[in-house]
């Protein structure tokens, strides 16, 4: 870890030395470890240390980005010159106005020192405990256990200075017995929150129930657990909840602001400061996070902005800039769906014939402006009859509009769960999506997985 003072000092030096009109320096450090296990063994146990510097320079309205993890002064100097030479040769981007100006960043603690207790030996011990507990119940365990320390520091030539240190850990687990499988996951910044027993119980419960029966594709009432709801929310965030998608006319929100688009029970927002999620005080441009409500009681409200998309509309960034160069737009990464009034058990009791879904697998967009996605159920799909969960069923393919599903929400659970989100691809930055379970009166299944 480079720590606040040294990190900001380094960035300020290079920003000050830059001859560009505006310069931004973003430093991301990572010290992480991940172990994966199958029923037979811990087959992978890796550790990584990396520091990455992203320089964004602006000459008039010409912007270039250079990323490097070679942090010798001579290399950084060469990277800065490279960035300027890249900016110089391109035509101006007339839509660009400015890098963001400084704003006070909320002081919150996102680092728990107890994460340092996770030595390789301790980690192996925890995994073995998981494997043993699952085995004792007659199942076999597969999964991954990871923890990391991440630092983000941003400085720009307009005075932005922000630094944050994060800890994170996640554990996900699949219990299986050849007939069925069940999934459970945990994510937190605090090692002391990790409880193995409830995780094992959740995964094993889902895997129990014997041979799955086959249900014909068609439309069914469903209960989606938080992990399945998370999948839908993340797609909505990517496809339509941000300003770039609206400005380009490809968001389902286009021409719908102020209109009721989904059921009035539905409120969805992004909030980097809500302690129920994994808090993130500022974005990758150093702009403090604001809460942005997308749906309030079913009515379309707002979208997220970074400095580029905000300036196009004469607005302020909402603190949703991603790492440059970002061509995806200010996609929200701290999503929440508001909980309802129901208990999950009550929701199940109210279903006469329907399907209970634990999570989805390999989802993808079919029609973006209708938010139609397809994917498979996985690790715990059950038939519900007369208010009771009956048999496990073979995994089903769904092809459905998430917006249509949210229009048909009958009930929302009071209890919510934080589901791991964010990236462990490339640079590590873990976040969480907080979602309830929902009951949907009509969800379309287009196929079944069976040889």
């Amino acid at each position, binding site marked *: 870890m480079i720590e606040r003072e040294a990190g900001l000092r380094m960035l300020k030096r290079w920003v000050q030395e830059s001859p560009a009109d505006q310069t931004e320096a973003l430093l991301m450090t990572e010290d992480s*470890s991940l172990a*994966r296990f199958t029923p037979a063994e*811990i*087959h*992978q*146990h*890796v*550790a990584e240390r*990396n520091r990455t510097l992203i320089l964004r320079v602006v000459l008039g309205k010409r912007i*270039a*980005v*250079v*990323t*490097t993890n*070679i*942090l010798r002064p001579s290399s950084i100097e060469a*990277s800065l010159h490279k960035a300027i030479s890249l900016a110089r040769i*391109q035509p101006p981007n*007339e*839509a660009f106005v400015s890098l963001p100006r400084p704003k006070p960043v909320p002081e919150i603690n996102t680092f728990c020192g107890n994460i340092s207790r996770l*030595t*390789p*030996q301790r980690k*192996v011990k925890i995994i*073995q405990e998981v494997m043993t507990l699952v085995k004792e119940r007659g199942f076999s365990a*597969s999964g*991954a256990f*990871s923890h990391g320390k991440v630092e983000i520091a941003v400085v720009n030539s307009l005075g932005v200075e922000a630094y944050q240190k994060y800890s994170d850990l996640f554990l996900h687990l*699949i219990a*299986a017995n050849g007939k069925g499988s069940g999934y459970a996951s945990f994510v937190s910044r605090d090692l002391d929150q990790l409880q193995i027993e409830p995780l094992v119980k959740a995964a094993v419960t889902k895997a129990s129930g014997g041979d799955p029966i086959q249900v014909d594709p068609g*439309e069914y009432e469903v209960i989606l657990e938080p992990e399945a709801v998370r999948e839908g929310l993340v797609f909505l965030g990517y496809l339509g909840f941000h300003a770039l998608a609206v400005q380009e*006319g*490809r968001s389902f929100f286009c021409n719908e602001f102020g209109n009721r688009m989904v059921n009035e029970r539905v409120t969805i927002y992004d909030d980097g400061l809500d302690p129920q999620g994994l808090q993130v005080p500022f974005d990758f441009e150093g702009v403090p996070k604001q809460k942005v409500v997308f749906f309030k009681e079913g009515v379309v409200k707002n979208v997220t902005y970074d400095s580029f998309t905000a300036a196009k509309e004469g607005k302020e960034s909402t603190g949703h800039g991603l790492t440059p*160069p*970002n*061509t995806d737009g200010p996609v929200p990464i701290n999503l929440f769906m508001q909980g309802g009034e129901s208990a999950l058990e009550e929701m199940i009791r109210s279903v006469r014939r329907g399907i209970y879904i634990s999570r989805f*697998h*390999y*989802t993808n*967009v*079919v029609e*973006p*402006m*209708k938010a139609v996605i397809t994917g*498979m159920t*996985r690790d715990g799909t059950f038939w519900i009859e007369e208010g009771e969960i009956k048999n496990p069923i073979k*995994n089903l*393919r769904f*092809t*459905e509009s998430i917006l*249509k599903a949210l229009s048909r929400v009958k009930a929302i659970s009071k209890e919510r769960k934080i589901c791991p989100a964010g990236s*462990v*691809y*490339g640079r590590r930055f873990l976040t969480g999506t907080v979602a309830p379970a929902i009951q949907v009166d009509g969800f*379309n299944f*287009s*196929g079944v*997985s*069976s*040889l």
Partner: protein
Amino acid sequence: MKGFVENILNLANLKKVNYADIRIVRRQVEEIAVKNGSVEALSWNEDFGFGIRVLFQGAWGFACSSKVDKRGMESAFSRAWEIARAGAETQGKKISFPPASPVVARYQTPISVDPFNVSLETKLKLLLEADAAIRRNKKVKISEAFMGVYQTEKTFGSTEGSLIEQEIMECGAGISATTIDRGEVQVRSYPNSFRGNFATRGYEWIEELKIRDHAERVAEEAGQLISAKPCPSGITTLILDGSQLALQVHESIGHPIELDRILGTEASYAGTSFLKPEMIGAFQYGSDQLNIEADATFPGGLGTFGFDDEGMKAQRVPIISRGKLVNLLTSRETAPLLGKESNGTMRADGWNRLPLIRMTNINLEPGEWTLERMIADTKEGLFLSTNRSWSIDDKRINFQFGTEIGWEIKAGKLGPMVKNATYTGITPQFWSSCDAVANRDHWQMWGTPNCGKGEPGQVAHVGHGTAPARFRNVRVGVRQGP
């Protein structure tokens, strides 16, 4: 670098490891994205570091760092050894790793024109011209052009005495036009969706793609798609073009044949496979038209290299012969389970990732048909082109794909254009319904630069050689419900 490598391998031998290797990797990436006449992103990325893999008393450890100096490497070695030791103390099953003969070699992607020697002005001009040509069609709302150049230098050393240096060059480009009307988005792209087509070649590949020449057609088709009829729903005959077939091969053959998936190491993330090792030599994967090879030696393929990341030479191996499964993708650790030696498919996404079994170039061998005869021989059906969406279950059985564009086939001729085309199927049933594969004149390599697998996540660059093929009794036009 050789001195660094020798130092770590000496340390490893002093610690009496079963095996250790080190990879020092430098990757340089230049990417240019143009959108609606402006430069959306112009970026340079340099990534440098090393990874050390240690097998100690039958347990693996891996540690990596961007601190490429003697101290940084020794510290990382200690971490890797510590991790392996923690596993060895508690692990019941000891990992067996077969020895290999030492290899001292150097490999370099053969190229004619170094893409980094072509000026950025030239590259930008090409992209901006293509982008402008797309936007001349007033129906187009978003025009895009992309080019990426990727150079990877790797030095690999192992305690077996191997020392391998490789320099792999990859590049690619593509364009797309997006039309938007009344709540509907249509995208048409060339030469392939999701940023283009990629190869282990030099700038000559970018020039051969002739992206500028296809701009007007792409824009025109994007405009036509908005008013095209929706893909009909039902069971019909399907002809897939090479680019869509490449992804079909990727998802429903390439991933299921990875032996690590079959053994369950991806169970908690990407999933497993419906295949079992004992199905080799017995399982009929598809019709006798289906011949699949894994070929890491094919010139220009995006999955082409000299040696994999555990020192095995690139190989060409049959996987499916006349529809029968005959082999799987393997590593040094897993191949002995089949009574075989590794077929050299272990690759890591950079210095900071552990090698995994990855596809190389998984190629559908050409058949004997011309595309024209295939269409003429089809009474009724659909011809679909260019992937738009993909999804498959965790055992790789049930898939669903969408394509950018399609045409009806009526009485042996291409008919009206269709939009929002989808098709779905069950992997072995689908490949068993293949009754025609086009010949070598229609066969080409497609680069897939976004193959995800593993935790921490890894993105592999793989290739698929395909020619259009025909499938009978396929369910198309998957509806989202009433």
